[in-house]
């Protein structure tokens, strides 16, 4: 389809007038660009030490600080001939073969550097800015710049008059007048109102991100109250779910996450308080100016509340490299990241572009960047957070002076206590291993004794892990002890004094050029004079600069703040903003489609006291919002296919979170618990395997927790929920104003096959079965109501019945199997490994079997690997089996490395002992192993070659007598061993790894071991249909 209307070509530029109208003359010549970007830095780096303005001793009499000085040259004459590199001495000396004369004297220039100089001289050696090479400058006319549409304060537009009575009849409020007037100019009529069912669904998803209940939709349709729409808007705006959804958009803007990213991707403790603060703020309809002031400078308020402090966590949300190449530069990058987030998020201004040079397109000088940076640069840069009163990152919100002493006491006690716990365990271990010899009596020495390699090798896997964990925890107590206090990530300044801020050449921390004071970007102020803050008042422990910044940003006269936010709110209701680049209102951004409407909305926003809910009401009560979206009709379809003029509403896909939450909601599983640190989605083996220490920083949450809304997902930068990611969750490293909307096959795979969807479809089917037992038609009606908020048509019912009948039959015909496989990757990080129960490591039948953790080892860098011979296993309950016959049919699944059949197996010390018939596909052999102890190396009793072909099943029969074992594979005797210890008893078990195996027809001494099926064929078929509904476009798109 066409993206852009023919209109654009026919009637001038719809999205705004051309750039030249704004009279910002800005584009430098290509040569200037080359000079500023490349040549100047090269000269500075390689030549200025001896030939620059700050050279200690000017060599050869050559000064290279300007075009003229290069022509003037030094002792050997002119250094350059503009336009003729071959005739230029500079090039000659760079190419000089004799090292003694070659320039620069140390380190030859590489080919690209030489090419660069030649190109530059060839272009006439342009040197914009003349002698003043202190800044990467561009000629910026601020007065002209102030005329840019978004830099002019919003002006009260005249309400347009509509000519057509048809349009006039549809007008609900002024929004419609602006929209319809623009449509009239193109002879397009606005669309009619959508039907009640569509509107109720649309409004629920827009405001709550959740589907309406069928009851609410029915009541709405049945009501004849003329005010019912406005009432529904109010009703939904009052819900917490509204705030949870609205908060998510803001969290995108401020690139919220709870970890630092990079190698360690460590937790930013208490970051969740900021998320909860944002939700609370939207719920309370906190005035937007106050919302911004709290985040920018809440700590500088008089008597700040806890929320005021928590809000300043805003400064702590970005990525943080714990091992940077250059610490000073990295700290500067942190401030830069904050400044970009402020400017793009609150002002839709891409000021970050002016860090290294004047902004290429917007009237912002490099100096303006640093002058604005000066407002925030006093915030202590992020460091590894410590729960201490002198932390510059974490603050105890409820601490009083008295707490300091108490805390010290508690910390000492708890450390002593922790050491005691470690020592007690050491004593216990020593008692268990008397063979290790005499151990020291002093606790610290005792702990170090049991930590030695020579002692560790005696320990079982569990004991080693336990000791490691205890020691780590005791050691970490210093930093992680929170006491009984409420901590928050916060902006903290070291004191009222500020370090000087400098313009930095190329944004490098080690190349200050000149000092600047905190000044607002003049182009955003009515005059240069107003750019100087008049109200910076240092506080006891901070500079007061951020308060001045907050007051400037939230000044009602600020040209950007209100416009930017109403544009975001508009985008939330139409899929695109009036300005389509919500984070960039500058020259490179899009021009607003309805600039006057944007101004009008911004002014109403200010009038309402920055009330976000009032703005929602205004937009939602327009006719424009309620227009139908599905029919794409002429002339709009031809003239404005992209619907920028809003002649209809847009059809929109659910965003990632709404889609996931809706699946849980219709299944009746959604847990509405609010707030807190968040939950950890269950990750598959595949998703976990991507880390350098798989599972590092991940935890295990209960199913109930995992059923909470997506906004409460623990936001780990290095481990996003794959289901959300595939549906265009934004990358939480950069500020994001809008999400992409892609359509790819992996989305279909996720909605068909992921654990959450399988679970939701099952619960949804069970829900309607429970509500209408035995009444398929009623069940189907309910399914439709819950998922797409309507009743099914007759032929849809027929399709559903046929589908369910056919699937029921097919499910019933399938041969049930016992399935075993690994649930985790080969290697896991120790702490994560500790959190997992045996059934989290190894998957097997959910009834009649129990699991053992088995052996893990090959420890390296806080990770351990499962043991191929003694790793996790499933043991068949109540299966005393010491003699007789076992038979089964075995299918190796794709790539499964081995299957082990355990015999006379006993669960011991979280592992197993007994016999193992080990079918090793990789080695192409079958062997009989004896595990005398769970931790020891098993003994090979017998082994024989066995080629295992994944594509066909194996029939395995094992006959066990007192001291003899015989095993047949496909009726060939493969193992025969006499000499088993006769007294061993125990049960049957199974081990495998990777994709695992399926077992059918397991018979133990003529007893058939049942395959427990949690669901009947009918139940599965209904779930299968429920899954169909969750995959429909009708479910995933909003009309």
């Amino acid at each position: 389809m066409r993206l852009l209307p023919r209109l654009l070509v026919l009637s001038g530029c719809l999205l705004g007038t051309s750039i030249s109208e704004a009279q910002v003359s800005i584009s430098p010549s290509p040569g200037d660009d080359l000079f500023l970007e490349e040549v100047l830095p090269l000269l500075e780096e390689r030549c200025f030490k001896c030939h620059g303005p700050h050279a200690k001793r000017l060599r050869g009499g050559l000064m290279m600080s300007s075009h003229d000085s290069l022509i003037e040259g030094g002792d050997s004459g002119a250094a350059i001939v503009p336009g003729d590199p071959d005739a230029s001495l500079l090039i000659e000396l760079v190419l000089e073969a004799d090292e003694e004369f070659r320039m620069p004297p140390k380190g030859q220039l590489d080919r690209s550097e030489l090419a660069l100089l030649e190109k530059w001289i060839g272009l006439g050696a342009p040197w914009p800015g003349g002698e003043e090479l202190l800044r990467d400058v561009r000629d910026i006319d601020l007065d002209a710049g102030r005329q840019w549409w978004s830099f002019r304060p919003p002006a009260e537009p005249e309400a347009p008059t509509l000519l057509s009575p048809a349009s006039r009849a549809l007008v609900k409020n002024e929004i419609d007048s602006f929209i319809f007037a623009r449509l009239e100019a193109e002879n397009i009529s606005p669309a009619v109102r959508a039907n009640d069912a569509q509107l109720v669904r649309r409004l629920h998803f827009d405001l709550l991100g959740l589907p309406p209940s069928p009851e609410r939709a029915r009541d709405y349709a049945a009501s004849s109250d003329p005010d019912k729409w406005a009432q529904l808007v109010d009703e939904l705006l009052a819900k917490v779910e509204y705030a949870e959804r609205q908060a998510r958009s803001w969290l995108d803007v401020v690139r919220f996450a709870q970890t630092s990213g990079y190698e360690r991707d460590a937790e930013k403790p208490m970051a969740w308080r900021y998320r909860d603060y944002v939700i609370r703020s939207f719920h309370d309809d906190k005035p937007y100016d106050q919302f911004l002031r709290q985040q920018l400078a809440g700590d500088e308020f008089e008597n700040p509340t806890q929320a005021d402090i928590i809000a300043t966590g805003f400064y702590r949300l970005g990525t943080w490299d714990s091992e940077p190449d250059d610490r000073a530069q990295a700290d500067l990058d942190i401030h830069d990241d904050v400044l970009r987030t402020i400017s793009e998020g609150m002002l839709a201004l891409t000021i970050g572009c002016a860090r290294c040079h004047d902004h290429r397109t917007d009237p912002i000088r490099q100096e303006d960047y640093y002058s604005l940076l000066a407002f925030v640069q006093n915030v202590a840069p992020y460091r590894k957070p410590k729960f201490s009163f002198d932390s510059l990152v974490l603050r105890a919100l409820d601490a009083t002076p008295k707490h300091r002493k108490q805390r010290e006491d508690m910390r000492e006690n708890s450390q002593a206590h922790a050491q005691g716990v470690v020592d007690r365990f050491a004593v216990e271990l020593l008692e268990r291993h008397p063979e290790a010899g005499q151990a020291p009596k002093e606790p610290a020495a005792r702990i170090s004794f049991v930590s030695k390699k020579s002692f560790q090798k005696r320990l079982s896997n569990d004991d080693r892990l336990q000791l490691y964990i205890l020691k780590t925890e005791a050691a970490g107590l210093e930093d992680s002890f929170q006491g009984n206090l409420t901590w928050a990530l916060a902006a903290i300044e070291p004191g009222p004094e500020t370090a000087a801020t400098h313009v930095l050449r190329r944004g490098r921390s080690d190349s200050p050029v000149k000092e600047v004071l905190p000044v607002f970007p003049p182009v955003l102020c009515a005059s240069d004079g107003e750019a100087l803050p008049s109200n910076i008042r240092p506080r006891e422990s901070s500079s007061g600069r951020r308060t001045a910044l907050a007051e400037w940003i939230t000044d009602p006269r600020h040209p950007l703040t209100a416009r930017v936010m109403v544009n975001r709110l508009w985008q939330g209701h139409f899929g695109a903003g009036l300005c389509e680049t919500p984070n960039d209102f500058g020259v490179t951004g899009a021009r607003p489609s309805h600039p006057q409407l944007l101004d009008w909305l911004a002014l109403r926003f200010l009038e309402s006291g920055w009330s976000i809910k009032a703005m929602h009401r205004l937009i939602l009560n327009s006719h424009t919002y309620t227009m139908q979206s599905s029919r794409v009709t002429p002339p709009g379809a031809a003239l404005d296919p992209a619907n920028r003029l809003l002649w209809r509403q847009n059809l929109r896909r659910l965003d990632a979170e709404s889609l996931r939450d809706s699946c849980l909601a219709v299944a009746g599983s959604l847990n509405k618990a609010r707030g807190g640190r968040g939950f950890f989605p269950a990750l598959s083996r595949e998703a976990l395997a991507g880390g350098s220490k798989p599972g590092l920083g991940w935890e295990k949450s209960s199913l109930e927790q995992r059923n909470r809304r997506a906004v409460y997902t623990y936001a780990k930068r290095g481990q996003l929920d794959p289901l959300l990611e595939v549906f265009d969750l934004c990358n939480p490293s950069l500020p994001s104003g809008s999400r992409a909307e892609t359509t790819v096959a992996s989305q279909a795979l996720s909605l068909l096959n992921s654990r959450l969807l399988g679970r939701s479809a099952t619960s949804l089917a069970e829900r309607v079965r429970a509500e209408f037992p035995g009444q398929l038609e009623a069940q189907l009606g309910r399914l439709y109501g819950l998922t797409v908020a309507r009743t099914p048509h007759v032929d849809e019912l027929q399709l559903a019945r046929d589908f369910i009948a056919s699937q029921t039959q097919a499910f019933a015909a399938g041969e049930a199997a016992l399935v075993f496989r690994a649930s985790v990757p080969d290697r896991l990080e120790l702490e994560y490994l500790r959190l997992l129960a045996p059934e989290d490591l190894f998957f097997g039948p959910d009834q009649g079997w129990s699991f053992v953790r088995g052996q893990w080892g090959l420890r390296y860098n806080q990770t351990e690997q499962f043991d191929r011979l003694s790793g996790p296993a499933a043991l068949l309950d109540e299966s005393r089996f010491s003699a007789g016959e076992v038979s089964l049919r075995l299918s190796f699944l794709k790539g499964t490395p081995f299957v082990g059949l355990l015999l006379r197996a006993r669960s011991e010390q979280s592992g197993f002992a007994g016999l193992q018939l080990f079918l090793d596909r990789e080695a192409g052999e079958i062997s009989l192993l004896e595990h005398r102890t769970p931790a020891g190396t098993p003994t090979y009793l017998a082994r024989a070659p066995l080629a295992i072909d994944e594509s066909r099943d194996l029939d395995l029969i094992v006959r066990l007598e007192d001291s003899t074992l015989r095993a047949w594979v496909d009726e060939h005797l493969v193992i025969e061993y006499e000499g088993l210890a006769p007294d061993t008893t125990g049960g049957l078990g199974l081990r495998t790894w990777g994709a695992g195996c399926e077992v059918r027809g397991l018979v133990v001494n003529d007893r058939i071991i049942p395959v427990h099926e949690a669901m009947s064929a009918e139940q599965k078929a209904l779930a299968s249909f429920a899954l169909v509904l969750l995959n429909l476009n009708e479910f995933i798109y909003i009309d």
Partner: protein
Amino acid sequence: MAPSSNSRRAFLKSTAALAGLPLFDASSLVAQLADGRPLAPKAPHFPAKAKRVIFLFMFGGPSQMDLFDYKPLLQENSGKTISIEKRRGDTQEMVLLGSQRKFRQYGDTGQWCSDALRYIPEHMDKLAIIKSLQTDSFAHGSAVLQLNSGQTFQGHPALGAWLAYGLGSENDALPGFVVMHDPRGGPISGPANWTSGYMPASYQGTLFRSTGDPLLNLSAHTNSFRSSMNRAMEREQIDAIGELNARHQAARAGHSVLAARNATYDLAYRMQETAPEALDLSGEDEATLEMYGLNEPAPSHRLALPTSLFGRQCLITRRLIERGVRCVQIYHGGGHQQQTWDAHHGVEENLAIHCPEVDRPIAGLLTDLERRGLLEETLVIWGGEFGRQPVSQVAGAGQIASSAGRDHNPKANTIWLAGGGVRPGSYGETDELGAEAAVNKHHLRDLHATILHLCGIDHTRLTFYNGGLDRKLTGVVEAFPIKGVMG
């Protein structure tokens, strides 16, 4: 329908910049993106030999002076103390550590290689070994990010994402950018290394496993009732979805995205066959398996993996390339230190662990690509995030332990290219000790510009609008393709 503002911006700019008028271009990649086909194939900027890229990422930073960068003077002076600037502004007295490997020249190009590798040097006349690359960071995290995305910061699209964005994919039943891991673990910073950053998620690298189910969610989660459905039942389910979608769509003519999304179900269904099929080596003859090292004996070192694992990944890579995947990246080395090429704790041990793991498989891959006529249109990249130091990391003055290791070195890195449009031969030099690039030195961004150039892409024209500028893989500083390695 509301395409993302990003895409519309990029569309506006690209079309306007190309011709000034008209403002409509149906073939625009953004139009495809908006229509839900972000990976539709696109023409390069200019004709090029390389159509696909294989990136053999040697994570940890292989020791160049023990492999390809022969430094006789360093070997002669091994054990002597020198003053060396290791990290920026940090000069220390350290002991030179000469390579204990023996070197010799191979092929017509006469390029040097040590005896740590036996099979790869047989292909010497296919390799352009660049010895003079420099990168910005001394630390793994940021250096790995930079080799992948051009930036030392997290959140920027990886090379493979740029290729998928710029050229699309030739097979829509497979991802455009595939990533495979070392079984020991992923590289540090994990998914940030194959992210699509500020681009749509469809360009990000897709993890592809060499055993079992290659793709996430390719088959149903074992806990789901769907795992007991056979292909016919799945087909029936997808048909039901299609039929109900068609009804829904009939009332919404003009919304092409609905049809596009419906079509992804057939694609997903096909993917369930095409993706595992790439893993199915049963059609490969014994000689091929042997060539990739699939029959090599098990290693003895406890941290070493059987050669067959990387061999299998290389063979699967060839199969993916044959099927039109645009970019395959395999990480060799996963986890930390000796699990990777990060030889702090012993260069000799590190070489002994890792060289046998990759040597035969990579040689086999080059042979196989060549004999199938794939090499000339496939660019193969081999290398790690930085080089290593000529000095011993832990040793007293004048003595070198047999376990001596080397620290990171961002000032001298060796990366080689082979295949599509590459001119074989040694390029660039380090100083006599191998401490720093000295002749024809290039920043990493020049390598990125070169890779794009070999794929027919002008690195200055492949841009994506974000945060106020048209971003490029090579960043804001001007980059120059390395002419000396292009045929």
